[in-house]
């Protein structure tokens, strides 16, 4: 409990700092916001237009396809909001400033992963939640489906966390973050569409091995009442497993850092 209080306070300070940096550069903030909104709208427009021409996508209606895309954005934006520090990790490793993080009594993984939320996505999250909520309400989900949905979104967020931890660990070992994180982004962007559109074996890989399906497609399907209780359990299991493995990997990387760098 005391630890929780300690870390929330540090998270708050880190976030306050990174917010005040971003808010100090208003035009840059505007550029990024415009870019993000533009990309989002262009894609929605494309999707809408595409489905109008083809009457659905892999058996899903237009509304459903758009809902998949919204859920993808929700998970994506949430993880970008919380894990923004990962993108700033590389310079710290290269310059050796990471050493100064390690000699502090705060957990180095906590600081490297959650140190400083992203102010830009702070603005995009509320409208996105409203849009997702509205699009979801069109399916008239039951309370149980809604509960499953929330549970699986949290689970998806944990898998995203696991990915980011793995990226950090890779960064320590290979000094490379920018591309690994972009690969992660590319992989998750498979989830812009329901994973059903991919043929086997790609679909299987995307669902279980690189659990994009579990991160994004499953929550959306759960709200539509298309996932069973067993499916939920398997998803949660994979979520916890991913997180566990990523912690192991991080510890391994730290040990490697301690015996390989100079």
């Amino acid at each position, binding site marked *: 409990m005391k630890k929780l209080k*300690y870390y929330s*306070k*540090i998270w708050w*300070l*880190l976030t306050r*700092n990174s917010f*005040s*940096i971003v808010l*100090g550069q208003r035009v840059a903030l505007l550029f990024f916001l415009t870019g993000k909104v533009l990309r989002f709208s262009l894609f929605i427009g494309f999707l809408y237009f595409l489905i109008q021409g083809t009457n659905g996508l892999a058996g899903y209606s237009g509304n459903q396809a758009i809902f998949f895309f919204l859920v993808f954005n929700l998970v994506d934006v949430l993880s970008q909001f919380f894990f923004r520090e990962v993108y700033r990790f590389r310079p710290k490793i290269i*310059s*050796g*400033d990471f*050493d*100064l*993080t*390690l*000699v*502090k*009594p*705060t957990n180095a993984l906590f600081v490297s992963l959650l140190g400083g939320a992203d102010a830009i996505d702070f603005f995009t999250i509320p409208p996105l939640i409203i849009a997702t909520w509205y699009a979801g309400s069109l399916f008239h989900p039951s309370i149980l489906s809604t509960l499953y949905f929330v549970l699986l979104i949290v689970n998806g967020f944990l898998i995203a966390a696991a990915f980011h931890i793995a990226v950090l660990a890779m960064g320590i070992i290979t000094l490379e973050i920018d591309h690994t994180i972009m690969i992660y982004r590319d992989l998750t962007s498979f989830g812009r569409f329901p994973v059903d559109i991919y043929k086997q074996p790609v679909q299987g890989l995307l669902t279980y091995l690189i659990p994009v399906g579990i991160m994004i497609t499953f929550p959306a399907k759960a709200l539509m009442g298309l996932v069973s209780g067993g499916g939920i359990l398997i998803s949660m299991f994979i979520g916890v497993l991913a997180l566990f493995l990523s912690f192991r990997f991080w510890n391994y990387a730290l*040990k490697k850092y*301690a*015996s*390989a*760098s*100079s």
Partner: protein
Amino acid sequence: MDRAIIVDHLVKNFEVIQKEPGLTGAVKSLFSPTKKQVHALRGVSFSIQTGELVGFIGPNGAGKTTTLKTLSGLLYPTSGFVSVMEYDPWERKPEFLKQIALVMGQKNQLWWDLPAIETFELNRAIYELNTREYEDNLKELVELLEIGKLINIPVRKLSLGQRMRMELTAALLHKPKVLFLDEPTIGLDLVAQQKMRDFIYEYNRKYQATIILTSHNMDDLVDLARRVIVVDEGKILFDGALEELVEKFAKEKIIKATLAKSDGIVDLEKIGKVRKLAFPEVVISVPRNAIAVAAAELLQNFAVDDLTIEEIPIEDVIRKVFKGGIFGK
């Protein structure tokens, strides 16, 4: 007296991947990288008392920084025993980390775009300082380092010297009992260097803090360190008082003489190595064991007004240490 730091037979090996030059080398290393073991520390032992200020010297790559990093828990020893304030540094327990600080010249913990005070506030939370401690410590450091007006200016607008003092403040807010300083004056101008030294001296004296300092700056060592440890190629070559370093390693002594006449001045070469000749002053260096003979010879064969025998200046000895050539390689 209690021992703050104990290091016993510390060994540290690194594995590095060798890069070969040229395109073929690059392609080759893509498929079969050549690995090489680097022996950074080969069995280092020493101990340091509480409140001591010790200078680590040696040429580049001798193992100084590796030692500091191992002591602060950043590196995992290959073998050997390390204890800092009775903790095993590698465990990096919060209680241990709250008592130490590592300051590396040219490495940053400050938030670049924000005033330094924001980093201080953050460190206050990280080290769990209460309001009283924080304010007292900050006030003291601000006064000692003369940075009162600077703490509200974004870090990127500060000069290197100013920034370094901020780094130091951030690192010392929690009043660490053990302090590892890696090249604290690197890149600073002379005035800033002096300020930094005064501060380190003060901090050591006032809080009985144990300090290990590595530096390539002669003045840092001469001003601050009473005891020095010389490392080269991962081994300790000397551990003792700074003055003894000269006695032990300077193989020569120096005769300074003032001559009355310039007759036969070329023959001075026969007595020893002439280092400086600006009549009437002459400086000759002579092997330590031949110094008495040389002095006698000089008095006998030349018209000498005045003569003194001195040790080689400590700076010369240290300079040789940095080059790594002192020990008869």
